[in-house]
């Protein structure tokens, strides 16, 4: 060597070797072999790189960042480490060969069997939580007869514009939304037969300019009928989330909803137990007014995960009626914390399914010669 270096030589390999010690806890592999490390630059003791996660809503983002800094700093001669966390959401297996919704990476149905369990509230708050983490999110209100998204998002007076025969969704807090409520005068009932519901939903899926989305959440109407079939047949769903309240009368219908998705082979991402106890406005204690453990019960029966339980906070109803969802208006509340955790768990689960290829489904089409 002609020139004497001032300190030990830091090579790309030595940095990557250290980074191999950092494992993604959900994917069970090190972040180097997962291909997460991008833009690695080494300049005189200063190392900088990006960690490209599979979702901006990663539950362990901060933890991974700290680990990366720690292992790289342990290399002798390194003075400064700069880690930037980015994300590139993987396209769900069903969306890889997509026919409908070609610019959407993951389509998630939020369903229940029964009405009134808070599906729309759950869908909105999960959407907002995902968007707050930096994901590109869409929210489709598939309840044609009883759309509630416009009110709950404070967008009752909005009318979507159209461009080149495509409808531009309404946007709030980074979430693109479409609902029958935007297309009909407020207070007017939609009196339609099933085939018209099918037509409207097909248009929502195919003629709305959703743009590039990481997650499209579909707020399903209650029941197991036309709307559910149309969505299961026309949108290649990455998975479904079942919402229930803890008492038996809601569980009966939630089981049916679960069974329906299993019949049409849509993976169940998990169960959300809503109205799981009442949050006292004075002492914040949670009282189980509707019995306990119902969500856990059906999740166990079906062999799926209980994603979480959301207590009934009077603020939820208040913020919904005012069009300011909890996750946005009261981000530090217990309810909002649970929503954020659930959103991240769902995002992580979809990443795992897509990367492991556990979900090998691929839509097919063929013309006979």
């Amino acid at each position: 060597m002609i020139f004497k270096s001032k300190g030990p030589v830091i090579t790309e390999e030595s940095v990557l070797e250290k980074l191999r010690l950092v494992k993604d806890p959900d994917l069970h592999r090190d972040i180097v072999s997962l291909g997460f490390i991008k833009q690695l630059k080494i300049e005189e003791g200063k190392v900088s790189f990006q960690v490209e996660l599979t979702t901006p809503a990663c539950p362990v983002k901060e933890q991974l960042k700290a680990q990366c800094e720690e292992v790289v700093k342990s290399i002798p001669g390194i003075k400064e480490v700069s880690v930037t966390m980015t994300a590139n959401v993987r396209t769900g297996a069903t969306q890889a060969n997509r026919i409908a919704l070609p610019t959407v990476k993951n389509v998630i149905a939020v369903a229940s069997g029964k009405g009134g369990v808070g599906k729309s509230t759950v869908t909105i708050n999960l959407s907002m939580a995902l968007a707050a983490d930096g994901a590109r999110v869409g929210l489709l209100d598939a309840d044609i007869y009883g759309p509630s998204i416009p009110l709950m998002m404070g967008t009752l007076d909005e009318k979507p514009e159209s461009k080149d025969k495509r409808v531009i969704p309404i946007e709030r807090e980074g979430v693109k939304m479409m609902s029958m409520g935007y297309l009909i005068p407020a207070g007017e009932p939609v009196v339609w037969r099933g085939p018209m519901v099918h037509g409207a939903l097909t248009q929502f899926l195919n003629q709305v300019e959703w743009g590039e989305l990481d997650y499209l959440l579909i707020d399903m109407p209650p029941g197991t009928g036309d709307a559910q079939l149309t969505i299961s047949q026309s949108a290649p769903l990455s998975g479904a989330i079942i919402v229930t309240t803890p008492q038996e009368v809601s569980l009966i219908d939630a089981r049916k909803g679960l069974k329906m998705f299993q019949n049409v082979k849509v993976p169940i991402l998990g169960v959300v137990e809503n109205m799981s106890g009442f949050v006292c406005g004075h002492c914040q204690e949670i009282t189980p007014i509707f019995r306990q453990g119902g969500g856990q019960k059906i999740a166990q029966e079906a062999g799926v995960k209980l994603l979480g339980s959301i207590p009934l906070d009077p603020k939820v109803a208040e913020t919904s009626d005012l069009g300011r969802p909890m996750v946005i208006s009261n981000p530090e509340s217990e309810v909002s914390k649970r929503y954020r955790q659930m959103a991240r768990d769902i995002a992580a689960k979809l990443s795992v399914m897509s990367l492991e290829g556990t979900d090998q489904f691929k839509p097919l089409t063929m013309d006979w010669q």
Partner: protein
Amino acid sequence: MNLAPLELKQLGPGHLGIIWNDGHQSLFNVRNLRLKCRCANCVDEWTREQLLKEDAVPSDIKPRKIESVGRYALKVEWSDGHDTGFYTFEHLRALCECPLCKSSR
């Protein structure tokens, strides 16, 4: 893992091949497939009575287009215009006419 087809293949003028995600390779005579349609026009929804008569199906019937329905079935558009039948993956697999499946029935 859920049973699902990975690949559809036309085998000559009248046969369809399917490669499944469990490795099995199915063979179907397409006219037999048409005759096994379970849609409400072909089989009575309440009584399960067979409404489709065999001689009503042209001997040279063939699919025009085959495509996925959601993630649980295939839909076939037939040359006689019939297009209301869904074949769920389980039903399709049960109809497999490969020598192995035939001999086990």
